[in-house]
């Protein structure tokens, strides 16, 4: 199982509490995780990535294992510890000043 954490606003929108456990078919990529997440929680479509182009929204970040994966290809494999469910795939709202 893949473990996914959401920022507060998206937890409220999806009516869930952290963490979410997802069954994701291999190969486990960022895109595959988001596909599985949006299939179970359709209200999240469009909030993390564009509904059509699938591009990550500018102020959303993907962290895992202490690394920023936001600029990795959506089709790249996530770290093995995420695949093993030992570390969460963290979806983050970017910091904003002010």
């Amino acid at each position, binding site marked *: 199982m893949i473990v996914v954490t959401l*920022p*507060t*606003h*998206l937890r409220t*929108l999806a009516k869930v509490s952290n963490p979410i456990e997802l069954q994701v078919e291999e190969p486990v990529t960022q895109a595959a995780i988001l596909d599985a997440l949006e299939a179970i929680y359709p*209200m999240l*479509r*469009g*909030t*993390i990535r564009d*509904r*059509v182009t699938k591009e990550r*929204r500018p*102020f*959303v970040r993907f962290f895992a294992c202490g690394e920023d994966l936001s600029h990795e290809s959506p089709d790249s494999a996530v770290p093995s510890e995420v695949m093993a469910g030992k570390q969460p795939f963290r979806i983050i*709202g*970017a910091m*904003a000043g002010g």
Partner: protein
Amino acid sequence: MSEVRVLVGTRKGAFVLRSNEQRKDWIVDGPHFPGWEIYHITGTPADPNRLYVSQSSGWFGQIIQRSDDAGKTWETVGNQFDYDGVPGTHQWYDGSQHPWEFKRVWHLEPSPTNPDSVYAGVEDAALFHSDDGGKTWRELSGLRDVKATLWQPGAGGMCLHTIVLSPDDPNRMFVAISAAGAFRTDAGGTTWRPINQGLNSGDELPDAAAEVGHCVHSIAMHPSRPNTLFMQKHWDVMRSDNAGELWHEVSGNLPSDFGFPIGVHAHEPDTIYVVPITSDAHHFPPDGKLRVYRSRSGGNDWEALTNGLPQRDCYVNVLRNALSVDSLDSCGVYFGTTGGQVYVSADSGDNWMPIVHDLPPVLSVEVQILP
């Protein structure tokens, strides 16, 4: 006794304010959707417990919420606003052409007869319609056939912020866009034409009387006179008595004719309200005095309404969707400010009181009267 329900959208959530027809004691319910920008929350005339909400965020984009029980519970409905076909381009700040990009929903306008039918005005400017209660949206793309390559965003974005449905002709509606102008369809939204003749934007446009490009801030109509429209433009308060074919200025003795909202009294079609602010550079009331101006003659002759409103050191603004009226015998007038106050007058504007003082900046105010 009737219940009064005021639906308030703010920068940080939605609030529902409840009272009876006395409109003195209020219950404040909220925030709903805390932390999200609520550009508009509105009820459907055909089913007052059906509410629609435009919820958005710079981080997470656009959400549309629907309630069928007056806000006790909410359902997330469709947020897919795909422009019809190839979106095309509009004029950009540097004069180049820029592709149309959806940003947010500014205004939701439900049908007066069918609670599942609702229009959405969006940024970048376009009009969408849903006939399934907000689950799916379809663009009425004929609007962008009207010289849309010449439209360009103002400082607040290129938004379709006003939708007025004709009460006597289901095929007619009016929309307004910043900074493109006013438009009318007589064909149910399939074809449109600009209705900007008579507007003068000499300080903003190289051609003061251009067919499109005017920065219309809001339009209001009384349902008993569907051919009479009132407009608050960037500068100038305007009136048309032929459904927008020709406008004439009715700013008269206003201290400033710059402002955002305009409203019409529920029972007196010639009584209209504006909230002047100083200028395009100074978005706050003249002299630090918050004054609603009322004309009982459809414009030109205006009186300041000040009882109960701050008359010193007040530097808030009232945004275009943040003024509304109710339909009680003694017409109520409501407005919200960028300082987070929501004011009510239960006597057509003669006397005012704050319902709440300290909400986040108010983006929209709508009123429902429940039997």
